[in-house]
Structures are given as C-alpha cells and as structure tokens.
C-alpha cells in the first residue's frame, strides 16, 4: 500500500529530524533513496537544489515532491501530513509541559546530545551527494568529474571568503554547469 508507506516514511522523517534546516537531509536520504528506492541520489540532490531556491522547509518540500512523483496529488498530501503530524503533537505537548514546569532540563540534555550527532549525520548525507556529483553514482576511480570538482572548490572559496548567499552560489553553479557541460 503505497499511501501507507509514504505516510510512514515521512512520519519518521518528521519525528526524527531535530535541529531544523539540514538536519532532515540524512533522514530523507535514508527513507527515499536507501530504504525505498523511490529516487536516485541525483534526484534527491535535485530536491535539495530546488528546496534551496524556493521558500519553505526542506522536509515539506521533499514530502510534496516525492509524494507527487510516487503517487500523484493524494500522495503529496499524505506525505506532507505524515511529515507534520509528529511535530504538531510533540510541539503542543511540550508547550503544555513547559507552561507547567517552565524549565525542562531533560530536553536541554537531549539537545546537547543531539547537536553534535546532527553534524555527523549531515556530513554523512553530504558525502553521498559529493560522491554522486564527482563520480555520478559510480565507485571511486580516477575517472573524476573535474568540472564539478572545480565548481565545488570555487564555490567553497566564495562562501568562505565573501560570505555569499547560498542561493546565489547554487544559481551561478547552475549557469556555469549549463554552459560548460553543454560545450564539452
């Protein structure tokens, strides 16, 4: 039952992505690429690209996009619903507890354990994407995509040196890629 699978996958993504922003990436990757094979790593990277250039949280963008691709509009609605349901319940429960007890030390402790974990998890998802960009999903070899490597190196330099907006970086990389890859 595809709807149930979509719901359950995105329920888990919504439940376990803590810390906002990129924290959802490793979970989305695991669910839609590794476990279910609904998308290739390239399509997954395209979702991130699109998410970076459009408003809205990555997890919501990913649920709408994946849902549509897999099971049309109902799929998108179910995936999005699954994604927001756990956080709605938890947020409202926490708000209730917070009003009662003010300071929730256990939440502080949990977050202290999760913050460094999230960095490691994003690094893992990042490495998958990096390998997809440089080797196009194949195994390590000398046959590396040098143009992609150069774009990545220059982008990191610009991000670090001039603190350029990521949207500008991604957009210009797209323009450069469109021209250079088409010429060779």
């Amino acid at each position, binding site marked *: 039952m595809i709807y149930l699978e979509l719901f359950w996958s995105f329920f888990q993504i919504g439940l376990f992505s803590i810390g906002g922003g990129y924290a959802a990436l490793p979970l989305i990757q695991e669910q839609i690429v590794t476990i279910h094979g609904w998308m290739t790593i390239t399509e997954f990277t395209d979702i991130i690209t699109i998410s970076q250039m459009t408003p809205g949280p*990555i997890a919501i963008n990913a649920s709408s996009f994946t849902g549509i691709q897999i099971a049309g509009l109902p799929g998108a609605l179910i995936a999005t619903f699954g994604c927001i349901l756990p956080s709605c319940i938890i947020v409202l429960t926490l708000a209730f507890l917070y009003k009662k007890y003010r300071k929730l030390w256990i939440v502080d402790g949990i977050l202290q354990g999760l913050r460094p974990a999230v960095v490691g998890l994003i690094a893992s998802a990042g490495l998958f994407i990096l390998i997809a960009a440089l080797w196009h999903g194949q195994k390590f070899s000398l046959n590396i995509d040098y143009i992609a490597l150069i774009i990545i190196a220059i982008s990191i330099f610009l991000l670090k040196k001039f603190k350029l907006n990521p949207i500008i970086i991604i957009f210009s990389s797209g323009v450069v890629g469109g021209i250079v890859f088409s010429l060779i």
Partner: protein
Amino acid sequence: MKKDFKFYLKLFYYTFKLSAFTFGGGYVIIPLMKKQFVDKLHWIDEQEMFDYIAIAQSSPGAIAVNASVLIGKGIAGTKGALVAMLGTITPPFIILTIISFFYKAFSSNLIVQNVLHGMQAGVCAVIIEVVYDMGKKIVKTKMLLPILIMIFAFLAVYIFKINVAWVILICAVIGAVNIKIREKKK
C-alpha cells in the same frame, strides 16, 4: 479580539505570506514571525514568543511549522494552530507541486540536466561549508563527549549503515544521561 471568520482568514493570510516569501529556512522565518505577530499586530507578547521559539527549535520537524503551530495555538487555541499551520505549509506545497510537474517534463532535457548537474556541485559546496562550520563549533568546545558523539554518528550511518532514527535515539539518551550525572555531581 473577536475570533470570527475574518480573524482566521487574517491569521491564514499572514502565515501564508511569511511562508511564501521567506527563503532560507527556519532560522530566517522566526525573526520575521516575531516582527509580524509581536511588534506589528501585538497578538502575542514578547516573552511568550521567546518561549515558543525555544520549544519550536527543540522539537523535531521543521522549525517554521513548529513555530506557527505554537503561535496559532497561543492566539486562538487548537483552531488557530490548525489555521496557522495550514497557512505555513500551503505555499511550499503548491510551489513544489508545480515544480514537480515541470521536473518530470524537463529533467530529460540535456541542457536542464547540465544546469542541475552544475547546481548539484553548488549544493555540495554549501553543505560542505555548513558541516565545516557546525563541526568547528563542536570541536572548539574542547569537550570530549560532543566530539565523540559527532564522530560516532557519522561512522554509524555512513560506514555501518545503522538506521538514522536509532542513532538519534541513542545520542538523545546519552545527552539526557550525561546531564543527569552532571546534575548529581553539583
């Protein structure tokens, strides 16, 4: 304030507008929400807003969605939470549905593929920069436990293919136990 249909329409409109025009995720939309609902409309007071932000950031899920649920609930109860949440998720839902349609039609085009390939390299750079920045902050604390947790999480998922949810649960437990031990020592 009367909680009539017009009120809920307004709540939907403001959350919709904020969500539709805010690029850059949860950390960008939060200050804008505060400006709209605290400074401009005075629907909630500042202290309450800070509590909501703290809860939204420490809960799972998208920060923008969490914050809008709390703000909606604070202003107008469960109905308010529902309306504010719908206002927040509708814009990305519509935008991605449209893009998804075009994606299917265009992604087989060679030039589009090349542009996406270039963008993929750009996204790599952005993620590498984010990981480097966040990782540097963890290392700078010079505390052994966070550094170990970071390395453990990476190895567990990348090398040993352990489920991300398990890694999150284990690290959450370690964090909770750690703070309990420290509290006892005091």
